[in-house]
């Protein structure tokens, strides 16, 4: 198994190189000159413009720019700065904790609510509870996240004052409850549907019938034979979600003023700030890759048929 883990970790190297190269190419292809955004309406002499372009290697082809980028990242160069002159690693170090906490909280809400509700719905297939959750999850899936975000922010934050309406730079876990819930909503609906179908399928599976025929109690059958097997697809979905939760938090972070990774990426893309954009996206890609590794390892725990040699 350790060999397997090592192999997977080695695979991240080409993934990292490929991903950053593609993103660099995309940022390079973006029309417009980021220096113009920096300069604004006021004229700047060609010398100053060229000096700034040189400083960020903007006159080189994107392959050369990319190699400069790799050098800075691999050597953890503390002077590796974005277009605003601020060190990129420091920016990410400041932004990552709040986004990661937000994503983990959303994931926990997603997993707990989604699996519990989905299991109940699956066990009582086609009952009233199942129908009600179906309707609710369809509604949740169809309302855009920014509508839910603004409405909940206004109702619970501004009007009722139960939660702080925004998070800001000084954040605490309790500030993040509302944004995490908003972030989790669409996923909760999917997790519920997924668990429900999976549980429902397993209930009629052969091994469950055998277990029942052996005379096992209902609770034992459900816990050991139905639930465990039903969770394989759900765990895949939830695990992969951590990656998309971190990346997909841009809208939520905007609404609730969370100074996280999503916001950093959004601003960097807007400004054409290649160093920050590519580094942030590379971090997201790495998180995604590591989460799928963890998910793969969890399979073996849940499903005795899967083993890594």
């Amino acid at each position: 198994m350790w060999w397997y883990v090592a192999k997977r970790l080695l695979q991240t190297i080409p993934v990292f190189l490929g991903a950053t190269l593609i993103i660099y190419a995309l940022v390079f292809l973006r029309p417009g000159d980021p220096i113009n955004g920096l300069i604004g309406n006021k004229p700047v002499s060609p010398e100053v413009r060229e000096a700034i372009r040189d400083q960020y290697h903007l006159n080189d082809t994107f392959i050369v720019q990319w190699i400069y980028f790799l050098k800075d990242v691999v050597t953890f160069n503390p002077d590796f700065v974005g277009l605003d002159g601020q060190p990129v690693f420091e920016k990410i170090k400041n932004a990552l904790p709040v986004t990661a906490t937000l994503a983990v909280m959303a994931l926990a809400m997603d997993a707990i609510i989604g699996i519990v509700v989905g299991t109940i719905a699956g066990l009582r297939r086609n009952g009233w509870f199942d129908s009600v959750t179906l309707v609710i999850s369809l509604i949740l899936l169809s309302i855009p996240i920014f509508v839910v975000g603004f409405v909940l922010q206004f109702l619970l934050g501004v009007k009722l004052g139960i939660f702080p309406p925004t998070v800001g730079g000084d954040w605490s876990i309790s500030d993040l409850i509302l944004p995490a819930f908003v972030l989790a909503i669409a996923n909760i609906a999917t997790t519920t549907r997924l668990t429900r179908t999976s549980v429902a399928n397993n209930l009629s599976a052969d091994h469950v019938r055998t277990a029942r025929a052996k005379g096992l109690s209902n609770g034992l059958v459900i816990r050991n034979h139905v639930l465990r097997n039903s969770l394989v697809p759900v765990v895949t979905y939830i695990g992969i979600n951590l990656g998309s939760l971190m990346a997909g938090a841009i809208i939520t972070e905007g609404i609730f003023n969370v100074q996280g990774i999503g916001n950093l990426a959004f601003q960097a893309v807007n400004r054409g700030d290649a160093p920050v954009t590519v580094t942030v996206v590379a971090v997201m890609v790495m998180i995604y890759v590591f989460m799928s590794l963890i998910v793969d390892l969890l399979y073996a725990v849940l499903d005795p048929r899967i083993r890594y040699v």
Partner: protein
Amino acid sequence: MRLSRRTRLAGVALIAAGSLTLAACGGGSDDKSDGSGSTNKVISVYGTNPQNPLIPTATNEVGGGDPLDNLFSGLVAYNTDGSVSNEVADSIKANEDSTVWTVKIKDGQKFTDGSPVTADSFVKAWNYGANPANKQLNNYFFYPIKGTDEVGNTVKGEDTVSGLKVVDDKTFTITLKASESDFPLRLGYSAYFPVPDSAYDADGKITKAYGNAPIGNGPYKLTKTGWEKNKQISLEPNPDYKGIHKAKNGGLVFKFYNSVDAAYTDVQSGNLDVLDQVPPSALTTFESDSAVKAYNEPGSSFSSFTIPDSLAHFKGEEGQLRRAAISEAINRPEITEKIFNNARTPASDFTSPVLDGWTKDVPGNEVLKFNAKDAKAKWAAADKIDKWSGKFELAYNNDGAGNKEFSEAMANQIKNTLGIDAAPKAYPTFDELRTVVTDRTIKTPFRTGWQADYPSMLNYLAPIYATGAGSNDGDYSNKKFDKLVQDASAAKGDERYKLISQAQTILLKDLPAIPLWYQNATAVTTKDLKGYVFNWKQKPDYYALTK
């Protein structure tokens, strides 16, 4: 056997998941206790993360500019109405033709590190800002001074500006390229702030550390925490400050926001005291919102669209007719009301109503009023000279709020009134639009705007429409206009305003840009905030805010 292997697997997964969670919690615990109990309360104001080091000559956007204006004092300080009072300067005297200015500095002026503010603190900082080797974005502000080129960089081969001479510790002279009677009005702008000697390293470069935590001479200084990246900038009153903007509050915190909407929500719920703008989503409601105090008045930023001189059909007499026809085809009040909910005021000239000497009666400004009949007649007259062909397109940047809506509305108005094919043309970002504008590859009229650098009507005219001026994006050139602006800048009092009016009349005839509206200054504050007044920059006088 199988069980134990599975347990080990679970262990690996758990450790991996656990370390992620731990990393997540690492930065979360911050001490929230603030020095409370003082009678003077700290005011929280809207801000954004500065995009440049906090160096006066490097900062050209509001995220860094607003804190800088409070951390530094220039030779003069702006009063709320846009007039100036001497601040660090004891006197600023001109020679007879206003080309050489002698500045004397008050005694006992200090930076917050204790070092004195001397003539050298200014001259060295300005030389630094003008030298292209230092890559400062505010070099442009030095262009009136002798020894700089037209964009304000030191002339080739020189490291220093020849027009700046230190006479003694407290005195220096500024020699200008041309006579300019209101030159001191410029000197309150942040590019002209002094910088202490401790800011420079051995090679004479301003250090990174200084850019993160500048030492100034203004009404405020940075607190111990100072600039916390992506969080806030905290200022406290400078006890040694002796100028006219003495802080009335216990300090300022510029809280950073990703979106103006989030900041507005925070004002509604009392988490933010001052938001110096209103998001488009709240424009219809903010004045009736009982949770906030609302402010809305005409402001100093001017919107227009420029029709470049190089466009076919827009040159000479035909061009004048077509430009006037298009201007008269636009119903400005309809757009400012329907699209901007009266947060814009239709323009009646090329400057701004908040300035000294402004008048709504500039001769020739009837061309800025909606007049469908006259517009059609002028367009038809132009067609007689040379038949119109093609499409009238209006370029705008789609990342500015309301740009799309007004460009579409305006294109429709032009289309309906003149019966020609007119359409908006979107550029996704501001820098994309600026790129095609600066390299002159743009082949359509485009949206332009101007926010003054210093409170003078001339600052709305000379830098944009004078021949060869730095921001003359449309390459407009009119000798008579150049002469009038030059004369006006040397003249004083009513004579000056008369000349400015004449210059504007020429612009109204040639219409190098079509004036649209003045952007209103809008703001919201919490209910208990006092002392909010817009200054000429559409910003509050931060030092006067209390609660």
